[in-house]
């Protein structure tokens, strides 16, 4: 699964990437991580507050550090 983390490289963005990756790996889903730090790309993706997360191009969260439970809920 392609995981896109939007953020200027702050500590919270780093944590966000770790949490999402951890949940996916625990489920045995291969992860392809992409970090987007360009503001224009963030704006085009509709991210107004960082960190933002998209799974396979679908924006699922913005402006917060997601919890494990939240990541689970995105996966359904």
């Amino acid at each position: 699964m392609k995981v896109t983390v939007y953020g200027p490289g702050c500590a919270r963005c780093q944590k966000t990437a770790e949490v999402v990756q951890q949940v996916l790996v625990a489920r045995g889903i291969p992860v392809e991580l992409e970090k987007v730090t360009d503001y224009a790309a963030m704006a085009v993706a509709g991210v107004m507050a960082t960190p933002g997360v998209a799974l396979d191009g679908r924006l699922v969260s913005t402006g917060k550090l997601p919890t494990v439970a939240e990541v689970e809920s995105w996966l359904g």
Partner: protein
Amino acid sequence: MLARRFPALNPLHRWLAALALLIPLWWFVYGQLDAAANGLVSALGLTRQTHFGEALHFFFYDTPKVLMLLFGVVFVMGVVQTFFAPERTRALLSGKRLGVGNVLAASLGIVTPFCSCSAVPLFIGFLSAGVPLGVTFSFLISAPMVNEVALVLLFGLFGWQVAALYLGLGLAVAIIAGLVIGHLKMEAHLEDWVQQIARGAAHVPDEQISWVARFETGARHVREIVGKVWPWVLAGIALGAGIHGYVPEDFMAAIMGRDAWWSVPAAVLLGVPLYTNAAGIIPVVQALLGKGAALGTVLAFMMSVIALSAPEMIILRRALKPRLIATFAGVVAGGIMLVGYVFNLVL
């Protein structure tokens, strides 16, 4: 921890039970702080008549007071902010005209979660959804300047009147500066890539948030904010305590008093490179006020430190051409100076 204490309850009832317990407790402890600080100072064999005793009392009283206020207010604001995601605020502001839009934008700036690190994506997100440039600026000025940490510290150290003044004037500066920028019609001074961004990009689906999730967000907000600012509060209050106890009265009158006309612009200029958060600067400023600094000058200094920061300008430079940045800084600085002079004249 909560689960163990109230095993028979569902999560929401657990939260409500904990709050029903904690709120009266908070209230009671808060009422005892002055007596406790007095007791502590005399237990050390000191009196408030000595410099050291006075400084210690200031520290023992103000530190727990400000920290308790921060805990309470930051939690409440964390819960309130769950009702105002940036997407929601953007939808409320989209298509609003100058005037009404500026008032609304400045007010929403208080309750919408904001971090200067996402100032640029937010700025572009607003513009691309049809929020006018001037309205967007009102939001961008109000959001960092009128924040709960600054208001808590002002309330705790100066009283509610000064906190209310700061709130009102902060909103006024944000509204007026946004109106002025809107009327200058500076859309051409956005960076080219900003002007080209397509309207109506993807957006996060509206999710139903439960009250448990809102309370949890509040608790997380406390951990993040209070966890970050408490060293600043301690350092600020310690420095303030030193000033209280040792710096002679009227020491500041000559440089920050109301007779020194140049002190207001100097305070604003000095505030730009300073980018401590409100938590560190306000206790120091409060102590200076007791030493003959004028309230208008002090308010101007605080607003400048918080609203006009060099790092934020550098971030915004990515999206704004130099002339628009300069206009933004100039208009906000002008508004803050006006506030300073009006205060020094009136009070």
